[in-house]
C-alpha cells in the first residue's frame, strides 16, 4: 500500500503504460498533474505554445508510430484550444489520450473561473470520454481509455479530471492490469469464398486502400493480394504509403485531385475491393455516381462504415489483416493483361506530370527534388491546402506511416506540430513538413517548440501569399470573384524563423537550387525553407465539390473546363 494523490496516480499509470513523452501546457486546474509529472523519471514533457499544438504533437507521435499519443491541457481555454486537434484525431482514427484539468467538483456548474463543460463539448469529437469523480476511479478509467483508444478502430479519448480529484489522497496497491486486447474477429468463411470468387472472376477490378490498412498493419498483405491477382490499386489520402506508390500497379490517390486516369479507371471498373476506407466524399465525389458499374467488397473493422454510404455486395467485418490473410489462399494468380493495358493507355493519355512541371521551380518538381534528397527514411507531414494536394499527388511514398496529413478534418496548422511529434517519436529520422504560408500561420508559435527541443524538422513553405485552394475555387466556381483569399502583406518567414532562433533559407531572392536545398535539409536541427510559388499554380485535375468524379477540370492533355 502506498499513499499518493490522484495526480501522482495518473502519472504512475501513464509511466506503467510505457508513455515516455507528453505534450501539453500547464494551467491552474492541472497544476497538481504537472507537480506530479515534474518528478517522473521516464516521462519527458514537451512544453507547447498553444494547446492545439500540444494535441497535434501528440498526434504526430501517434500517427508515426501507431501507439497512443498523450497530451495535457488545463480547464476552460486550455480545453477549448485542444478540441480541434482531438476532432482531427477522431476523423482520421488516431489513438490519442487527452487529459484535461477541470475546476474542483464543488465548483462545477457555477461558472467558475476557466470552467467550461469539457465533458459535454468533447462527446461528439471523441471515441469516448470520461469525467472522473473520485481518485479511486483513476486506474480503471486510464486502462479503459487506453483500451478504447487503441482497440478496434482507433480514436481519441478525453479524460476530464477535476482539480480536487487530482489532489485527493488515496491508498493504492496495484495497477489494475490492462485488459487483454480482444481476439481479432475472423470473417465468416462463406463470405471469404464469395469475395474471392468475385475477385477471381472480375474483369476490371480495382483495389481501394485506406487508412485502415495502415492502422491494422496490413500493408504487406494488401501487397500480396494485389500482386497475386494483379490488381490496379488506388489509395485514399489516408492510405498513401499502405503500399509503395512506386509499385507499377499503384494508381495514386483517387477523387477530387486524383490523376485523371485513376478516376477514369474507377469509372470503368467492375469490382471495387475496398479495404479500410469510409467512402469519404473527397474520394468518391458524388456518391451515387461513384464506380457506377462496380460491385463492392467492403472490408472494415467498424461495422457502421459498411453500407453507410455505398451498399456493399459482400461485407467482411473484422481486422483487415485477418480478412486479407483468410482471403489470400482463395485468390487465383492472374495477369489481367487487358485491364492493365487499358489503364496504361489512360495513364499515357492523361499524365499527372509532364517534364515542364517537374523542374524544381515548380511545385511538383520541388516536391520530387526534396523527396530525392530526403530519401525513403524521411517522414513527411503536410498542412492543408495546395501544397498538401501536390505532395499527395507526386511524393513517392513507399511505406506506411511515412505520410502524416490531416485528411478528414482538413485542419490548417496540423503540419508543423505533427512534424514535431513525429521527430520526437523518431529521433533518428529526418522529418519534413510541407506547409503553406496560410497554414503555417495557424500554428506558427510552435516554431519555438521545435527550436527548444532541437528537432530535426525541416519546414518547407510553399509560399503563394494566399489561401491557395480558396483562391482556386473562387477562380473556378465563383466567376473569379477573389475575396478574402489574398494576403496583402508579404511576410518574411525566414526572418520570423530566425526570430524564434531557427535557421532559415529564403529562395525569394536567390533561385532555387538543389545544392542550397541539400544544405538546408542536411543541416542539423530545425530549419525553415521559404519557396515562393506563383499564385496561379493550381491543383489539377479537380472534381468540383459535389460533382461526380468523371467531371474533372484540368490536368495535362485535357480541357480546362469540361
Amino acid at each position, binding site marked *: 500500500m502506498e499513499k499518493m494523490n490522484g495526480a501522482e496516480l495518473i502519472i504512475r499509470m501513464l509511466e506503467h503504460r510505457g508513455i515516455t513523452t507528453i505534450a501539453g501546457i500547464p494551467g491552474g486546474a492541472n497544476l497538481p498533474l504537472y507537480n506530479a509529472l515534474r518528478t517522473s523519471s521516464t516521462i519527458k514533457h514537451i512544453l507547447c505554445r498553444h494547446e492545439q499544438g500540444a494535441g497535434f504533437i501528440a498526434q504526430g507521435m501517434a500517427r508515426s508510430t501507431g501507439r497512443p499519443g498523450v497530451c495535457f491541457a488545463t480547464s476552460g481555454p486550455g480545453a477549448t484550444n485542444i478540441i480541434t486537434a482531438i476532432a482531427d484525431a477522431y476523423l482520421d482514427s488516431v489513438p490519442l489520450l487527452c487529459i484535461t484539468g477541470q475546476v474542483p467538483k464543488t465548483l462545477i456548474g457555477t461558472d467558475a473561473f476557466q470552467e467550461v463543460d469539457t*465533458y*459535454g463539448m468533447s462527446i*461528439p469529437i471523441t471515441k*469516448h*470520454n470520461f*469525467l472522473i469523480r473520485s481518485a479511486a476511479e483513476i486506474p480503471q478509467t486510464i486502462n*479503459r481509455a487506453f483500451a*478504447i483508444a487503441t482497440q478496434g478502430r482507433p480514436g481519441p479519448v478525453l479524460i476530464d479530471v477535476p482539480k480536487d480529484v487530482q489532489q485527493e489522497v488515496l491508498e493504492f496497491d496495484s495497477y489494475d492490469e490492462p485488459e487483454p486486447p480482444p481476439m481479432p474477429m475472423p470473417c465468416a468463411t462463406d463470405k471469404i469464398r464469395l469475395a474471392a470468387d468475385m475477385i477471381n472472376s472480375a474483369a476490371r477490378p480495382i483495389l481501394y486502400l485506406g487508412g485502415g490498412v495502415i492502422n491494422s498493419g496490413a500493408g504487406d498483405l494488401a501487397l500480396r493480394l494485389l500482386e497475386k491477382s494483379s490488381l490496379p490499386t488506388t489509395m485514399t489520402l489516408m492510405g498513401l504509403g499502405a503500399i509503395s506508390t512506386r509499385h507499377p500497379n499503384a494508381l495514386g490517390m483517387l477523387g477530387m485531385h486524383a490523376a485523371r486516369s485513376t478516376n477514369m479507371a474507377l469509372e470503368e471498373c467492375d469490382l471495387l475491393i475496398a479495404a479500410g476506407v469510409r467512402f469519404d466524399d473527397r474520394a468518391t465525389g458524388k456518391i451515387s455516381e461513384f464506380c457506377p458499374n462496380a460491385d463492392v467488397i467492403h472490408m472494415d473493422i467498424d461495422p*457502421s462504415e459498411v453500407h*453507410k454510404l455505398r451498399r456493399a455486395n459482400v461485407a467482411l467485418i473484422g481486422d483487415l489483416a485477418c480478412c486479407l490473410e483468410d482471403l489470400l489462399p482463395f485468390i487465383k494468380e492472374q495477369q489481367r493483361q487487358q485491364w492493365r493495358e487499358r489503364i496504361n493507355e489512360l495513364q499515357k493519355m492523361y499524365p499527372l506530370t509532364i517534364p515542364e512541371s517537374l523542374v524544381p521551380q515548380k511545385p511538383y518538381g520541388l516536391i520530387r527534388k526534396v523527396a530525392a534528397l530526403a530519401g525513403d527514411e524521411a517522414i513527411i507531414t503536410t498542412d492543408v491546402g495546395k501544397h498538401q494536394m501536390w505532395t499527395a499527388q507526386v511524393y513517392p511514398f513507399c511505406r506506411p506511416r511515412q505520410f502524416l496529413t490531416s485528411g478528414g478534418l482538413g485542419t490548417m496548422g496540423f503540419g508543423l506540430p505533427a512534424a514535431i511529434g513525429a521527430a520526437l517519436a523518431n529521433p533518428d529520422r529526418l522529418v519534413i513538413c510541407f506547409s503553406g504560408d496560410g497554414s503555417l500561420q495557424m500554428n506558427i508559435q510552435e516554431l519555438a517548440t521545435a527550436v527548444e527541443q532541437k528537432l530535426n524538422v525541416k519546414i518547407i513553405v510553399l509560399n503563394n501569399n494566399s489561401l491557395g485552394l480558396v483562391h482556386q475555387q473562387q477562380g473556378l466556381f465563383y466567376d473569379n470573384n477573389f475575396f478574402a483569399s489574398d494576403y496583402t502583406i508579404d511576410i518574411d518567414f525566414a526572418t520570423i524563423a530566425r526570430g524564434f532562433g531557427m535557421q532559415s533559407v529564403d529562395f525569394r531572392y536567390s533561385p532555387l537550387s538543389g545544392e542550397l536545398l541539400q544544405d538546408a535539409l542536411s543541416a542539423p536541427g530545425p530549419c525553415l525553407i521559404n519557396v515562393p510559388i506563383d499564385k496561379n499554380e493550381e491543383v489539377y485535375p479537380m472534381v468540383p465539390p459535389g460533382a461526380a468524379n468523371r467531371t474533372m477540370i484540368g490536368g495535362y492533355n485535357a480541357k480546362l473546363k469540361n
Partner: protein
Amino acid sequence: MQNLKTEEATGMKNPTDGILIELTVSNHPGVMSHICGLFSRRAYNLEKILCFPKRNGTESKMWLLVHEESKLEQVLKQIEKLEDVQEIAYRRNSTGFFLQLEAMVEKY
C-alpha cells in the same frame, strides 16, 4: 402530450408506426448526453425517450422511439458503438408502448 396531439392533428403517422429501440446502458451522469448527442450529431430523428434506472442504479434501461426506417441500420450500428451501451434490441410497430404511457401520464 404535445407529440401525440401533433400526430393526431397532422394525421400523418399511423400509431402503429415507428421503431422502438430498447437499450441497457451503464448508468452515470453522461449517458443521456451520449445517446441524445449521437442523434443530433448524425441528424437522426428521436421522437420519444424513456429512461429508468435498474439494478440499484448501476444500469439504466432506455426506450427510444424513432421514425428512421431508411437509416435504421446505421442508427443501430452507431448506438451499438457507444461504450456505455451494453445491450440493444428493437421492435417495429411499437408506438403503442408510448401511447399507453402517455395515457397514464395524462391521468396522473
